[in-house]
């Protein structure tokens, strides 16, 4: 207390771009509100009952005014809609080769799993100047991952993956909140985003100890749950091989084609009969209820990793 903060910190270039739109809207809002309030006050003073102001000019052609302010409002509004949409589209186009971090929300904490196997709770460490892509899941209710300093937020809906991406440029510690009401300790479901420069980030990774990478842990689960029995060459049941699948188009038995992103992989593990690859029998059992979101993240990371090797090999 004692000071009046008026502007949130900016941790990246996107925040500045958004602030510019916000400031322009602020200026226009202040001008419009100022005009309305000025006119109200001016008319109220000039045409107060008992004043001698001239009232002979009553115009009959009111429709000209109506058409005028309708058109001006409409033009401004359409302009804002387009400007906003252009910035928004950026959030839907993650750059390739972003650092991918799995986030799992549950009442009332955020868990992060880094590709190197590092894990943290209510903390997220990321390198400055590098694109980061979050693949997020919820174990219970809807949560919302919100970092005000980056001006981004995404609801995390249980039952499916949501993704978002950002690039933080300025090292520092920034608030991380849950923005969707999720129960008793909603206000305490948060922590800190720590943006580190390259050397500090390398140090931080090292200090976390030498775990297996997330993909490697996923490979172990791939064996333990028996996935490899069918999905690897020489299996007894004919099942799609998963090398190179990630990121590529998959023809389905109903004739449609889906891109094998993390959502498709997750759904195929939990509800395999929903989207069956063309040419295969729907014989895979469901793993719903057997795998935690943590284990799912590892399996998805493994399948992503063998997808990447295959494509790089082909090149």
């Amino acid at each position: 207390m004692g000071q009046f903060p008026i502007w949130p910190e900016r941790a990246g270039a996107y925040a500045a771009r958004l602030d510019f739109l916000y400031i322009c809207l602020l200026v226009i809002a202040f001008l419009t509100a100022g005009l309305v309030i000025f006119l109200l006050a001016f008319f109220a003073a000039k045409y107060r009952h008992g004043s001698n102001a001239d009232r002979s000019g009553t115009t009959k052609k009111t429709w000209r005014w109506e058409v005028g302010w309708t058109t001006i409002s409409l033009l401004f509004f359409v302009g804002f809609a387009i400007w906003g949409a252009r910035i928004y589209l950026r959030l839907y186009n993650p750059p390739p080769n972003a650092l991918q971090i799995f986030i799992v929300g549950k009442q009332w904490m955020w868990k992060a799993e880094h590709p190197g196997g590092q894990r943290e709770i209510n903390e997220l460490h990321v390198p400055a100047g590098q694109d980061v892509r979050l693949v997020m899941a919820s174990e219970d209710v809807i949560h919302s991952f919100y970092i005000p300093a980056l001006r981004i937020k995404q609801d995390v809906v249980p039952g499916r993956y949501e993704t978002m991406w950002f690039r933080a440029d300025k090292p520092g510690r920034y608030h991380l909140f849950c923005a969707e009401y999720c129960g008793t300790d909603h206000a305490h479901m948060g922590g800190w985003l720590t943006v580190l420069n390259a050397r500090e980030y390398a140090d931080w990774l090292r200090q976390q100890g030498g775990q297996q990478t997330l993909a490697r842990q996923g490979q172990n689960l791939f064996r333990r749950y028996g996935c490899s029995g069918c999905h690897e060459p020489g299996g007894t049941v004919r099942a799609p091989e998963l090398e190179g699948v990630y990121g590529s188009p998959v023809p389905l038995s109903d004739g449609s084609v889906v891109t094998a992103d993390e959502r498709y992989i997750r759904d195929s593990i939990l509800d395999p009969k929903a989207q069956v690859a063309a040419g295969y029998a729907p014989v895979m059992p469901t793993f719903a209820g057997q795998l935690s979101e943590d284990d799912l993240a590892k399996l998805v990371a493994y399948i992503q990793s063998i997808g990447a090797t295959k494509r790089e090999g082909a090149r």
Partner: protein
Amino acid sequence: MSAPAAESYLSARIGIRSWLLTTDHKRIALLYFASITFFFAVGGVAATLIRLNLIVPEGLLGSPDLYNRLFTMHGVIMVWFFLIPSIPTTMGNFIIPLMIGARDLAFPRLNLLSWYLYIAGGVITVTALLLGGVDTGWTFYEPYSTFYATGYIILTIFGIFVAGFSSILTGLNFIVTIHKLRAPGMTWYRLPVFVWSTYATSLILVLATPVLAMTLLMLLAERVLHVGIFSPQLGGDPLLFQHMFWFYSHPAVYIMILPSMGVISEIVPVFARKPLFGYEFVVWCSIAIAAIGFLVWGHHMFVAGQSLYASLAFSFLSYLVAVPSAIKVFNWTATLHEGWIRFDAPMLYAFGFIGLFTIGGLTGLFLAALPIDVHVTDTYFVVAHFHYIMVGGAVMGYFAGLHYWWPKITGRYYPEYWARFAAILAFFGFNVTFFPQFILGYLGMPRRYQAYPPEFQIWHVLSSAGASILAVGYALPLFYFTWSILKGDRAPANPWEATGLEWTIRSPPPPENFDRTPTVVRPPYQYDRGKPCLQVGND
């Protein structure tokens, strides 16, 4: 004009039965006034405790569960038991038949049934909230409400479900009344704008409320019987709930604001002694708002995980729905030009409405811009925005109308200077309460937080201080209106020199409203150099 001995709807019959079994629209309106004031007070107590809790970062009341129940109670009571019924069931009920020259609403007994349904729903809901409350928020998001929420959810939802039928029947009653019971000569373009606004509101009530009823029934089916609809644990889709909920709840915002716009459109011409600028445009803007208002629900879901293309479309449509609101503000302002303006209490409330609604509407433009919404949705920015519309707009309009028609309803004047003081106090208190919340929101303070990081404290303290001023502004009318009923001066038939039919009969009106059916000869708000030209004619 106002012979004190003349029979009025108040004195025609006496006794508790004459009130509880009445079919007189004016008496039913008073039943609503009493019950709505009660619910406003209940919601207000919850709001007071919320603002009290937020004075310190760790939360003054200590318990998160208590806080979560308080904001749920505040939202549920204020939305469904105060804001939505507020103007239509009180002033709408009382004034609409008088404005169009009718004896009563089209279905008087249905009107009484609406009140009983409203009371039944209210009693059920308040009981649930007092027994221990609900911690879902007024939005009942899924799968939280099915599997994780605690408290009397089934009872609360049932109460809202029952009250919904009151809304539907009230809307139906108004639509039929406005179509069928207009006096000779009262053409559509001679209707006062308040009638048009109530008509547009009624259309939304009838078309949107059933969707809420269905949604709540499905929620009950899922929570009680585990029928999988919304919860992924049962194979359902949480976004389906949000689509259905907002398909009702966004038009519900227009249910709250359209009647207030109607009240302001009555008051501004009367106190400017000039016709309403652009009558046809104001009227058709009401209809446009009601229509386009059904197509913008997805702007509550820009970060919820709906498709990119849906978000782009909903953003565009949200800008479109802002146009008619902007047109109305310009028309009210232009009405003042070359008027003979008086500053009685209703006009001060109307000025307050225009100022606050303008700020609320302009901040809506920020929220319709997709990337700004991503940052400020679910923060105090949204809280501030919708309070500017619903409290700054709808409640200011409610008080404006109350002060305007009070002499007609009770036959008494209220102390004018106290009323002006209350209007100014409410305006300042409101701004001190809610303007800091815009700043908090852009700083990133999420809503529904029982505790918060200490750097936000100063704005919360300011907001709570403003709320205490606002509370005085809202409590004052309770005292001077009570005084007015007991000791106020008698009011004549037309104290404001207005032109509508309701001002041609005694104050308070006789039980039968009009001695003989009036004939309407001209549009509303006609003034000849500041002198009123009544709508009613002699032939």
